[in-house]
């Protein structure tokens, strides 16, 4: 029993050691670097939850078959503080996702890049956001 706590502590250390969060291998455990993908579809739902937000989109394949994909993002809290709301990504919005598929074969992906169909990035990062309206449109 004691050993298990030591392990939990080591796991905590991995984050607390000041390593950037992307170094803790969670994404490598969840997603498959050998399965890159590009999805285009209509947003059906945006789960604004912690620890990760999930964008649901309906993706139609060449045969017209629709699959519901879930795309993992970050915590919604920072976005709220930047002024974005749930209305910033309404259902029906068409987006393009470049990322990697889940290891277990389910229709889940991590979105390394999220854009609108015209290529404009969703929710410009705070450093780039000066003067830009939420949603990535330029004013």
């Amino acid at each position, binding site marked *: 029993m004691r050993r298990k706590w030591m*392990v939990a*502590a080591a796991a905590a*250390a991995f984050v*607390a050691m000041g390593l950037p969060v992307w170094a803790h291998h969670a994404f490598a455990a969840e997603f498959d670097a050998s399965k890159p993908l590009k999805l285009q579809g209509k947003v059906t739902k945006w789960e604004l939850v912690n*620890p990760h937000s999930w964008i649901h989109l309906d993706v139609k394949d060449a045969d017209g078959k629709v699959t519901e994909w879930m795309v993992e993002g970050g915590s*919604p*809290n920072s976005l709220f503080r930047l002024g974005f709301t749930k209305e910033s990504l309404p259902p029906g919005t068409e987006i393009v996702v470049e990322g990697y598929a889940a290891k277990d074969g389910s229709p*889940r992906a991590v979105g390394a890049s999220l854009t609108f169909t015209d290529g404009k990035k969703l929710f410009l990062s705070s450093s780039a956001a000066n003067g830009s309206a939420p949603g990535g449109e330029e004013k």
Partner: protein
Amino acid sequence: MRGSVLVVTAATLAAFPALSQTPLAAAKVQAANKAWTVPRTPDGRPDLQGVWTNTTITPLERPPELAGKAYFTPQEAAEYEKKTVATQTGDRRDGGPEADVARSYNEFWRDRGTKVVPDLRTSLIVDPPDGRVPALTPEAQKRVAETAAMMRAHATDGPEYRNLWERCLTRGLPMLPGPYNNDFQIVQAPGYVVILHEMIHDARIIPLDGRPHVPQSVRQWMGDGRGHWEGDTLVVETTNFSEKTNFRGANAGMHLVERFTRVGPEEIRYEFAVDDPTTFTKPWKAEIPMTKAEGQIFEYACHEGNYALADILRGARAAEANQGSK
């Protein structure tokens, strides 16, 4: 207005010789804050209340390439900021698929910040003077190495082998900025200070009445905190950390002293001192400004939205099954 700030700066430098040894940026910050009086709560104590963020790109430890350099010049700081923001961003797509997966998602989700601390120090650690965490004791080195090896061997065996953030448990103490959710709310009530950590909805309720700590046998994720005022500085001493926690190698033996001083309308100076002779060869201290945050704390309900943990374990099981079938 500008003239009076310059006069104050010059007067401050003249009146406090030690300040003339700190860089001009630090002196400017202090001078700007000099003209302001701290608001007080009804019991006459400084008012620390509000929502605060400690986001900064200044690292905890001084990078090796900056050894011996305690402060940036303004020019160097600007260059460091530019370089760090460009290097750290999750929007980079270079380095191949493994790097891409590790960076996970776009940078807009994160709150890493774009600025170093206002006084341009090159590390958050202020003591020891080299800006680095002191060496671990031999006992701690062994402990850390053993648990790291065990974690590598069992990394995806089950939830207890994942880190505390992934498990939605706690971000622990001390209050250090991470890549997101660096927000805290302070509330003062007669006899208590409450510090709410947005991540992961931890509320520390700190009594100020001088009562003793809980017994040694009681161990907690956020330890057991006791507060008192030293002049206009709130001092919080925390002990009784659970051995399930970990801060840079320290767990149950950690003795943490935090100091909160409201130094300006938009700023609290937060200092922490870590003392754990079972882990570190000497105590060490850091200082991080907390600035007024825009907006509010949002509930960081975590466990119920935690698809990722199950996905990590499922992914590992799928990878094992694929290997088995080869």
